[in-house]
């Protein structure tokens, strides 16, 4: 049957929706104010104000869990700061750089470009980039504030001898030694709870930042923030407080954050005919979770997928996924798909930690009895059946042949295992 694509487009376009202003619920939306973060925002502003007055108040380290408003806080402050210096004619500027997936060199280049320095994106090294930065800062009488967001997500290249995060903090906090004058103010942002421990002593000695911690929101605060955004995003009269309260509770219960909450809201609003309901929120949460899970699973490499499948399979059939048993199943799947298995050392050192870092599995050490050493026990954080289905689909796509373990004798034999 021929599908009228234009008709689908027309219908979707004309569909009655309660979502009037979806932009308010997106990550890129910068609100005018941050509810329940007034103290933190004021603290940052005061710090920058002191710097503006000619005092060097020291560097800043802003940290806290994801979705607690760190980036928005600095962006709100930056906006006012830049407006203020423009109005007053002060030669000062905040340069904001998100370091996620950037190398140390790329971060330096982005900084130079932010300052208006013409520097090639490729071809030169970090030393040349630092040299250019020093030359520029020596020439300039401006007072600069460099903000490095998500510093823990800097990408390490095979050429990097040291951790890029430490290299960046070390270099930035020692600029004064090369400048022979006051150096820019450095603001670093991270959502890692152990960020301070990750900074090397030698680096920390000079960096010595003032730290500002962004705590998690409680249910009432989440509710107030959601309600505040909903008022601008949805049509008047299309919502009551009940589903909003429910969503706030869901965020807390499922250990999610506001970004997740906003995604759920958009999904639920798109499904709603005239009113947002608790049922719609629940359904939307399921869709968003599946969507996010599917994205994570699609981002895994072939061997990571097989290991994830093996953990899910063993959990599903009631066998404890310990190192040896997990590797055995992993090897069987590799053979089945015609892929060369990695060594056990590789799987345990490089493959499982990556899946663990994505929050799909956890591991713990377990003794095997006196004199028999220790093994790792893995645990799946999601429903094993759900993961099995999703991974089997992706593996079939990638192997260009259907991966149907329920038709493979070896896997049936494992699934019928009876242990003492």
């Amino acid at each position, binding site marked *: 049957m021929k599908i009228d694509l234009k008709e689908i487009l027309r219908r979707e376009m004309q569909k009655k929706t309660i979502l009037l202003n979806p932009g308010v619920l997106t990550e890129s939306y910068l609100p005018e104010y941050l509810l329940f973060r007034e103290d933190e925002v004021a603290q940052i502003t005061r710090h920058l104000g002191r710097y503006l007055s000619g005092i060097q108040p020291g560097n800043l380290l802003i940290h806290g869990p994801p979705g607690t408003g760190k980036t928005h806080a600095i962006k709100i402050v930056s906006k006012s700061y830049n407006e203020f210096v423009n109005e007053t004619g002060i030669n000062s500027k905040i340069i904001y750089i998100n370091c996620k997936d950037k190398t140390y060199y790329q971060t330096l280049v982005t900084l130079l470009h932010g300052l208006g320095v013409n520097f090639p994106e490729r071809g030169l090294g970090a030393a040349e980039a630092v040299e250019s930065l020093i030359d520029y800062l020596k020439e300039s009488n401006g007072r600069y504030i460099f903000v490095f967001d998500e510093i823990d997500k800097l990408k390490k290249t095979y050429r990097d001898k040291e951790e890029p995060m430490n290299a960046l903090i070390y270099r930035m906090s020692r600029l004064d030694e090369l400048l022979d004058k006051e150096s820019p103010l450095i603001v670093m942002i991270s959502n890692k709870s152990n960020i301070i421990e990750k900074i090397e002593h030698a680096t920390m000695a000079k960096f010595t930042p003032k730290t500002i911690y962004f705590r998690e929101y409680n249910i009432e605060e989440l509710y107030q923030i959601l309600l505040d955004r909903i008022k601008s995003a949805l049509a008047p009269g299309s919502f009551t407080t009940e589903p909003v309260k429910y969503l706030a509770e869901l965020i807390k219960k499922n250990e999610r954050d506001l970004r997740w909450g906003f995604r759920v809201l958009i999904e639920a609003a798109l499904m709603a005919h005239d009113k947002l309901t608790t049922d719609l929120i629940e359904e939307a949460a399921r869709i968003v979770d599946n969507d996010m899970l599917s994205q994570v699973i699609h981002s895994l490499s072939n061997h990571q997928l097989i290991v994830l499948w093996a953990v899910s399979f063993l959990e599903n059939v009631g066998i404890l996924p310990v190192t*040896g048993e997990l590797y055995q199943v992993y090897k069987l799947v590799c053979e089945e798909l015609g892929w060369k298995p990695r060594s056990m050392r590789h799987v345990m050192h490089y493959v499982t930690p990556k899946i663990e870092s994505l929050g799909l599995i956890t591991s713990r050490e377990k003794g095997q009895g006196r004199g028999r050493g220790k093994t790792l026990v893995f645990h799946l954080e999601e429903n094993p059946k759900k993961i099995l289905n999703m991974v089997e689909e992706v593996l079939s796509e990638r192997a260009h042949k259907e991966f149907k373990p329920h038709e493979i*004798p*070896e896997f049936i*034999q*494992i699934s*019928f295992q*009876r*242990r003492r």
Partner: protein
Amino acid sequence: MRLLKDAVKKMTSEAILVNIEADDWKDAVKTSGELLYKLGKVSKEYIAGMIKTTKRLGPYAVIAPGVALPHARPEDGAIDIGISVVILRTSVDFDSPNDPVKIVIGFSAPTNSQHLQLLKELAILLSNREFRKRLRRAKTSENVISIFREAIENFGVGVWEKT
């Protein structure tokens, strides 16, 4: 239990060895494969396939405490549906949490669907602790046949909940 029922019905003492010594797990698997070969159920290659699959399966080759279930794929040389039973005098290790192994049950089926079906049926049968216990104590081939037949007849009448 359709396939297993037929196979057990046709089971003869030629498919069984009781009170047999084996040097190691490979020897035990080979013995069960040779029984199938002598009965014309598999080709010589199938025996090598059984050893290979057992190696690939590692700890999972021993499906229940003390019971190994070696088999190869139908394309490795399965000619007909067959079951062989080897009860060892001295247990051997397969490097499995279910060691030591005293019972080795080899099987074959010519098509993939029959192979899977027979594997499932045998797995269900072997999940019964009482059945395994009786098999371990069997003294003669006739004993083994009657234990199998009784188990098949009693299937689904309550005995099977005690796994």
